[in-house]
């Protein structure tokens, strides 16, 4: 099966500047995790997103047309900060992958993919 893993966390933290040793230390577990997904055949896609102020939400209202709002769909203490699209045998394996994401604090939603047009 394929699962979408949505990572929600507080985006208001000071990340270290690129090029500093602190930045390298922060990135190392992510690189290792990504490599593991690729090596073990789980990887389909994944990305880190820009923070929520860059988000635009389009609300489609049927015949009434559409409206647009500045910001993410739901405002909460945590924001969607990134995602993975992975292959996993079942929900237990997908949850194992989600738990291996190198973030100590996050709410991670795991949801099966129903259909993906470019799936092989």
């Amino acid at each position: 099966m394929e699962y979408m893993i949505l990572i929600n966390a507080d985006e208001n933290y000071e990340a270290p500047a690129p090029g500093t040793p602190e930045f390298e230390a922060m990135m190392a577990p992510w690189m290792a995790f990504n490599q593991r997904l690729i090596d073990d055949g789980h990887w389909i896609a994944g990305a880190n997103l820009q923070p929520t102020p860059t988000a635009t939400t389009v609300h489609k209202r049927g015949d009434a047309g559409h409206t647009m709002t500045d910001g993410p769909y739901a405002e909460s203490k945590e924001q969607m900060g990134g995602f993975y699209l992975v292959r996993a045998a079942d929900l237990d394996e997908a949850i194992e992958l989600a738990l291996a994401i190198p973030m100590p604090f996050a709410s991670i939603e795991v949801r099966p993919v129903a259909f993906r047009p470019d799936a092989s």
Partner: protein
Amino acid sequence: MADATVQVALTRVAREESGRVLALLARRFGDVDLADESVQDALVEAARVWPVQGVPTNPPGWLLTVAKHKAIDRLRRAASAHRRTMAAARDLSVLQDAEFDDGARGDEMIDDEQPMADDRLRLVLLCCHPALDRDAQVALTLRMVGGLTTPEIASAFLVPEATLAQRIVRAKRKIRDAGIPLSIPADLDGRVDAVLSVLYLIFNEGYLTRSDRDVVVRVDLVDQAMRLLGALAELLPDHAEVDGLLALELFHSSRLATRTDAMGDLVLLDQQDRTRWDLEAIGRANAVLNRAMRRMQPGPYQLQAIIAGHHANARTADDTDWSAIAGLYRQLAAVTPSPVVRLNHAVAVAMADGPHAGLAMLDDLESEGGLEGLDRYHLLHATRAELLLRAGRADDAKRAFVLARATALAPAEQRHLDRRLATLD
């Protein structure tokens, strides 16, 4: 054949065998919903056919054969409509030849004990999967492992049948669509804990509603929980906590007849008629608890069972070894620091070392916020009231009883507090 005999055979095959058949079909077909629906179909057929033709010589074999054919019928019907089930039906024709095809003898034996035990364990782990919410876990476990019907479960939990049916449909849909596996997980201990809390919840629901004389239920959840737990103990002979919970439930059940009076009012432990306690249940509980403790894997259920055992084995309330119980509650609070455990710890300390020691613990508990999340907050006030009374502070006790009475919700508890207040006037 006498109707009563047929009825007994029907209930027996549903409760004791349908879970095995469902587990086997679920694995063979790789589809829990299909297995569940087919077993239900087969049970309906049994209720129709057995009173006419008589109970078959091998009821579980009959159930397996009929349920299997019901599953194949369902797949065939679905196959024409859906590509995915068509593939399943193709697999099925192969599987049928290889694994099931011994014709319509109607008396297939369920042999091959080891894989069967694994199938049942997989099924109960699936029903209690943490990705399902607690209500769904309870409903699925009773239906798929315990062989209860949806109306029986609905009546036992006092919820509308439609609500419960919807809950089961949703849960089965999530199992299928989210890919929740029928497997033995790597973290077996953690998942067994989830099963135990579901079974304990079922037990408690039965234990509490039994005392409510206004409620008539069709199935006894106390019996169901203990039956399922007994089966789990067979499947997991090396898990001490399974036996720990079984012992705890046996100790509790030994007091079922005395914990309420003829009016349905609560009778406190020290007021109960101990000559009416079920000595056979206590003996069994002692044996199960000893078996658990020999495995040297301590855990919260065993600790609670040891505490319950101290009470059950004390011939009079005065014989109770309160300092041992206080020590056990201290250990339990270290593992599961829930408000109720800490409250009970304070009571045990008060019984062992006097009311002042207990009152001091209650004050600490409240000031450090240790009772946060206590949904039965009246227990704090009622406990304090009893300790104040024992300390000779009747006026303070009365104030605490009034607070307890104002926050108690259950009618039986309200009546109990009213009686306590009346004795102070």
